[in-house]
């Protein structure tokens, strides 16, 4: 086992440990047995996720190059399937029931998009056999990949899952930037997005508008859309330096805080472990993401590098946006905290991504 694989795995397992104790704490006061045992299911996801991690860390990542279009089609297929058969939960149609497992295709699609973008921008010029994105014209650098990305993004936003859709959009921007396409293309695209934003407002669902409004001022609707932000800030704020101690958080356990074990698990964790715990967790995430970027910088293969960058970016965006929204610095969008939030899809996809990352570093030396 290589050094970086071990480091990534250890950090991930540490975060998972914090996840399990937080999920246990946030649900152990619930009435029903099923709720109280939810941490056991998370343990199972983590176990399976770890297996996936080792499995993927031994699969040559170059194979994803070949599978890219297949994966792209598969993810589109699942996203469409959600519209037909999806389970409606929390007002959104994001889940597919497969046996006893609720599969969230948007998580899977997110990873597929990373692979797709990595492949697209690492394809070589057929004439000069050299890396070409720098020379690409606006159509091939921007419009064509945007077209491919826009299809799943549109489907995901329509679920509605604005958070994941936006993450993919941000990933797209970051990857075209990192792929060394002309800066003026990147900038013109960003400008275009900014210009479209006011019009996009009209296409948002009412609850999404509410969430954006309460993000600007949570107090306009303290019992409605603003409730979660306020409760989450109270939970984090009341933790203090050392926190209230494990199993002693009142906000999360007494269910003032909604979604205390999924999207708002950071608030649950912070209430009980305080600033100290929060800093430790942030440090773990930082080290994990740093590993990703180090691997990317070590990798010479263009596809490998872009893939490593995309995965690291995907993780860091989720971490930053989720924690910022827990603290009220970002509007509430349904984005999970990787490895911390309860949920099989999220855990699996994160472990798969980390597995690919580990393999990139392992395979690097083969070249």
């Amino acid at each position, binding site marked *: 086992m290589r050094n970086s694989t071990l480091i990534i795995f250890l950090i991930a397992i540490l975060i998972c440990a914090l996840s399990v104790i937080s999920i246990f704490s946030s649900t152990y006061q619930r009435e029903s047995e099923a709720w109280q045992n939810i941490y056991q299911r998370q343990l199972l996801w983590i176990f399976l996720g770890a297996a996936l991690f080792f499995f993927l860390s031994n699969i040559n990542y170059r194979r994803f190059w070949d599978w890219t279009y297949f994966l792209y089609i598969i993810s589109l297929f699942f996203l469409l399937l959600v519209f037909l058969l999806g389970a409606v939960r929390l007002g959104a149609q994001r889940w597919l029931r497969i046996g006893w497992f609720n599969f969230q295709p948007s998580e899977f699609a997110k990873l597929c998009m990373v692979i797709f973008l990595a492949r697209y921008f690492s394809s070589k010029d057929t004439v000069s056999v050299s890396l070409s994105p720098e020379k690409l014209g606006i159509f091939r650098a921007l419009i064509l990949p945007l077209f491919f990305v826009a299809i799943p993004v549109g489907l995901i936003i329509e679920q509605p899952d604005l958070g994941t859709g936006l993450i993919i959009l941000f990933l797209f921007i970051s990857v075209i930037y990192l792929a060394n396409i002309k800066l003026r293309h990147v900038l013109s695209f960003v400008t275009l997005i900014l210009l479209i934003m006011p019009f996009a407002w009209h296409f948002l669902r009412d609850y999404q508008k509410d969430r954006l409004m309460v993000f600007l001022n949570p107090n306009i609707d303290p019992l409605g859309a603003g409730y979660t932000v306020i409760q989450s800030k109270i939970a984090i704020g009341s933790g203090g330096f050392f926190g209230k101690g494990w199993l002693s958080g009142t906000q999360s356990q007494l269910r003032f805080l909604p979604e205390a074990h999924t999207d708002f698990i950071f608030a649950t964790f912070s209430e009980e472990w305080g600033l100290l715990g929060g*800093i430790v967790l942030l440090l773990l995430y930082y080290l994990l993401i740093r590993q990703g970027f180090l691997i990317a910088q070590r990798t010479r293969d263009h596809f490998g590098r872009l893939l490593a960058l995309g995965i690291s970016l995907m993780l860091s965006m989720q971490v930053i946006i989720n924690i910022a929204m827990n603290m009220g610095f970002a509007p509430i969008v349904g984005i999970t905290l990787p490895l911390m939030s309860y949920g099989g899809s999220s855990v699996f996809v994160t472990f798969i991504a980390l597995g690919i990352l580990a393999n990139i570093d392992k395979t690097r030396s083969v070249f």
Partner: protein
Amino acid sequence: MIRIKILICFLTAMFFLLIVGLFNLEIIHGRNFKGIGDKNCIRLLSQRGSRGRIIDRNGLVIAGNKISYDLMFVPQEYASQDELIFSVSRILGKDDKGFSAALKKTYPVSSMPVSLARNLKLKEAIALGQLKADFPYITIQDNPVRAYPNSNLACHILGYLGEIDRWRLTKLEDYGYKTKDIVGFGGVEEKYDYYLRDEEGGISFQVDHRGRLVRTLGFKPPVDGKDIQLTLDIRIQKIAESALGERKGAVIIMNPYTGEVVALASSPRFNPEAFVDKDNVMVSRLFKDPASPLVNRAISGLYPAGSVFKLVVATAALENKKINQHTSLLCQGSLMVGRQDFKCWDTHGQQNIISAIAHSCNVFFYRLGLLVGAQAIHDYALKLGFSHLTGFDLPYEKQGFIPSPLLKKINTLKKWFDGDTANLSIGQGEVLVTPLQVARMMAIFANGGYLVTPYITKSIAGKDLSRYRKKPEKINLRPETISIIREGLRGTVNNQGGTGHVLSAAGVTVAGKTGTAQSPPRQSHAWFSGFFPFKEPKFVICVLLEHGGPGYNSCLIAKKIIEEMLAEGLI
């Protein structure tokens, strides 16, 4: 590669910002959020004790407690709210709009039970209790509230209860008073509110996000307020109040040796129930009434003293040895002082001090006053307890005013004339006194020269207060002075031409002084103050009728009171 480095720097900065944000939330604003967090999940369900009772000297209850029933309801349960309102309004026979409004107001508080209707009768409470089958989330809570078994008896002594106002709250916050507390206004209820008030108890418990109980954190039983025993005798109070009837005025009956007040009536009266029932129409009428029924006229009413004040002049003259028992002065019906003619109400001829008091001769006292001098009259008035507070233990006592040459100069920059002295001598002009001050002065002649401090509180929670009371103070009047004035006071009643002769038929030997205080353009105030029995006085009485005509009218009331007290064997 540069682009990667820029991106890494950017992400690192973001992580750093997150830590700064955490620090801001948890350390800088942590205490604040902790408070909010606790408030989120800790609830207090208060339980009230009963307010201390106010009882009379024989242990009879003047202000007690009764159980009132409140209809409480937990607003988080909304399912059948309209039906509930409909049923409740049908049982209580009230419009359901009021309930809907009350309900709307309480909506955001959630989870804590709120009251839908207060002060229900037992019958209504039982009827509403039946609703529990259909609406399990309502409860009928019993609360002790003030009850007045004797209706408006002694209302001015008691005062009334109401929600604490802003001014009192700022003053009393440090003593544990909170907004919406019920406190006393006026009378014993205000003065001894701190002892009367119950200590709120309650259960504190932890609730979850829907207000459901998680666990009980603590229980503190409520503590009832302390009972206060007054020196008041309900029987005498009843006699005094019924004698006064609806006429404006005040009656005070007091023990001349100790100053303990056994009856203190003021009229018009108010019914303190109105404040308990929150009968807003009634309450606002009380506040707007031009007859000011909320004012305790016995201690807060200021009136010109009239002829009652002649006793002060007589004391000053006798003490300064300007005259003696035998000195006689001539009354021809009027006296020229300066350029003004001062009238007497009759022509009395030659008389000495005793008959001048008995007949209340104005001219005699004009002459005497000029002999003694205004400053001496002022000084003796102060010595006899006027122009300062008596130290009575009810709030809002007024101190009154006695003019003097010096004070006139200070206040108005005008010179004092002999005419002012003449006016002062018969208690007119700027003289203002309270009935309690007059009764206290009369007590001096009844008890042989002691200035007492009147009081009405006998004990608090069974603990006698006499240790903390000011002892009667000897004011060094010569025994002859007192006995001469007592003769005069007795003459008022006993002599054929005495102004209070009507009282000679009262059944006990009464001595006293009448007063008819002019207050143009309206009718004069009628005074009578005296003591009985003459030899060994048991009671001092002071009757004032505001704009009640001549002093004779007050004598009639005094007579009625004394006769009834005699009939009930209270003397």
